[in-house]
């Protein structure tokens, strides 16, 4: 297939902007005529997938809609009912599938997400706080002047600054954002390990239809999409989840179990942290370097995502239940990796809240509990976004089967240590061998490291589709 028409696709779909500041605005649309007028104005500033030959712009703008939002825009009923069921229902109603129970259930969500009032997500990314403010002010003026949308709430996110340096880390200290899949036709500097595994051991891009509507997917079919086809083509679905991180609980848990792991020293602690996720905290894949972090591997695009698990069936290098191995099992389930090609997701996201210095929450054992609870209460986490052609087939499957269940990995009912929605008495097994440096370990009584604070399912339309919506031209016939 040839190159995609990047100018018709919202830029947020085709590339992670890699900008350090973001504001995600959640809008309620006004009456349809005014909402369309707002979209019409907004169209002029929407960032497309066109390459940045002149360098990065100061800021970007993108928009996506909930099913309620599309209804508020007065789209024809025949179009509205043609959307996938899970999108029509919205994320809250899918809680039973997603494992959004216990501390993750909607009764603990931010009020914004409990009211089911959100019509649109408007994402602004920027290189500086000033550029962010400028763009936000511009968009706000469009909303006010047209009366087409009201800002319900917004979430600010920013790359974590640690010791004065802007980083790619998240709050638990792991370097994030390594592997997103490659797709056919998407212009991007590809690297081995990011597409699908071929018989000869090389990697090829996934079918475009795993990301974008209107193209063949890995089954050679067009993904389920709304009508008319022109509304769907070059669009995708987005999942937004605000994930609070209990940093105090994480650090206390890591310290507690690291004291019983191997030599019980700092290296053992870092090694155990690496065994939780499948990467050392600097990003080095444990599979490639099980004994120590190796910046030369982590920084090398030809190696940082280029590995498989077939030679490590017992999980003695990368544990079978490690986060990265769960959500992207590569060849771990056999059949040369073919079982997972329709379960891939593209991730976007940035942390919110300030980074807690490592000294916090790591005080004397007596003070640890108090410190940990105080740290947990502070507002920090990640604004996690997923892009995929089918929320039910891709994101929901990964969340239900691979994060909150372990059967595919032969791990019974075990869940993902970090992301899982844990009930009482759950465990995490670190497989080991007979050497002193790599012992097995069973971490018991898993606490909830992450708590969902709300979110929603969105439709992220193409530029053409946005135009159709703005001009009232959506016609399912």
């Amino acid at each position, binding site marked *: 297939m040839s190159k995609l028409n990047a100018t018709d696709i919202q830029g947020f779909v085709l590339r992670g902007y890699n900008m350090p500041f973001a504001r995600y605005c959640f809008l309620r649309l006004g009456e349809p005529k005014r909402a369309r007028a707002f979209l019409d104005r907004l169209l002029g500033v929407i960032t497309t997938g066109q390459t940045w030959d002149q360098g990065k712009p100061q800021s970007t703008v993108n928009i996506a809609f909930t099913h309620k939002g599309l209804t508020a825009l007065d789209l024809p009923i025949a179009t509205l009912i*043609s*959307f*996938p*069921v*899970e999108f029509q229902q919205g994320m809250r109603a*899918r809680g*039973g*599938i997603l494992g959004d*129970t216990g501390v993750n259930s909607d009764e603990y969500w931010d009020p914004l997400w409990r009211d089911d009032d959100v019509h649109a997500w408007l994402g602004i990314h920027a290189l500086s706080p000033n550029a962010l403010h400028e763009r936000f002010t511009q968009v706000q003026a469009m909303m006010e002047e047209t009366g087409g949308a009201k800002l319900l709430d917004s979430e600010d996110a920013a790359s974590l600054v640690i010791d004065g340096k802007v980083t790619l880390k998240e709050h638990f200290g792991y370097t994030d954002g390594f592997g997103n899949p490659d797709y056919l036709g998407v212009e991007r500097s590809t690297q081995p390990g990011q597409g699908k595994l071929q018989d000869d051991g090389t990697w090829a891009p996934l079918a475009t239809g795993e990301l974008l509507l209107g193209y063949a997917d890995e089954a050679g079919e067009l993904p*389920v999409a709304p009508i008319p086809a022109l509304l769907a083509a070059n669009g995708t679905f987005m999942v937004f989840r605000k994930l609070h991180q209990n940093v105090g609980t994480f650090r206390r848990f890591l310290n*507690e179990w690291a*004291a*019983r792991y191997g030599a019980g020293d700092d290296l053992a602690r870092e090694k155990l942290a690496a065994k939780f996720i499948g990467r050392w905290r600097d990003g080095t894949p444990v599979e490639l370097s099980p004994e120590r972090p190796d910046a030369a591997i982590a920084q090398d695009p030809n190696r940082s995502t280029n590995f498989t698990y077939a030679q490590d069936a017992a999980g003695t290098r990368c544990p079978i239940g490690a986060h990265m191995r769960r959500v992207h099992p590569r060849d771990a389930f056999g059949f040369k990796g073919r079982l997972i090609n329709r379960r891939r997701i593209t991730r976007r996201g940035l942390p919110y809240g300030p980074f807690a210095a490592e000294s916090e929450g790591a005080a004397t054992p007596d003070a640890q509990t108090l410190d940990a609870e105080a740290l947990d209460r502070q507002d920090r986490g990640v604004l996690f976004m997923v892009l995929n052609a089918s929320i*039910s087939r891709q994101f929901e499957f990964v969340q239900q089967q691979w994060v909150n269940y372990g*059967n595919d990995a032969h791990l*019974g009912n075990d869940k993902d240590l970090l992301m899982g929605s844990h009930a009482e*008495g759950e*465990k995490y*097994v670190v497989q080991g061998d007979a050497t002193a440096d790599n012992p097995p*370990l*069973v*971490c*018991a*009584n898993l606490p909830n490291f992450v708590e969902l604070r709300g979110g929603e399912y969105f439709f992220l339309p193409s530029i053409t589709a946005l135009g159709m919506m703005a001009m009232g031209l959506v016609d399912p016939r």
Partner: protein
Amino acid sequence: MANQSGSVYGLTLLCPIVKDERAVPSHDLQIREYLATLPTDERSPFAAAPGTHLARLVVMDDVIYVGMPACEEHLKSKYLIFETNCDADIDAYFTGLAKAIPEQLDAVWSHCTGYPGVRDLDAFLSYMKACQLETTFFFAAVNDKSVTDTLKALQTQRAVADFIATHPVPGTVVDAATTQREFLEFMKIVEAAPTPRPGLKAGSGASRREIQTGGHNE
């Protein structure tokens, strides 16, 4: 033998549903109504039936030919599909079913053509076997262990994890010999413990039926 994978038996039955235009509601709807009331957790009748790894009941109304050019075909009747992965052999399995859940079997299969009822065990066995189709695909998660062995292994796995987590008590130092002695005592308790009952715990929320998935536009 295609029906068998290691020690696990893959059973597929296709039982014609009684075609009676005077029946109101129709027999297939009566089966559907009854199946909708059956719990899917540990209270499921198949949790009481020994040797069941997994069981699924489906009412098949008709077949639809998907493809080009379209071609219209119909089944001669509606069918009840019963699929299970169970511990072989099937004579013993059907006999176990008949003993454990006779009312439920009759409630479902009495809507099927020619079903003799469980009271006449020989007739029941030959009826069920007459409806059998060859099975070539198995539930991927079923390994080569019996239901009892699987339940016992899961119980042991969880208990050992708990033992490791609590021995030695964090903050204390215990010599290896003591830990070994405690482990051997612990293993005796685990081995003597009764086998857990199959099926998800009732009320665990894991089998929420109100969530409907799998529609054509999902």
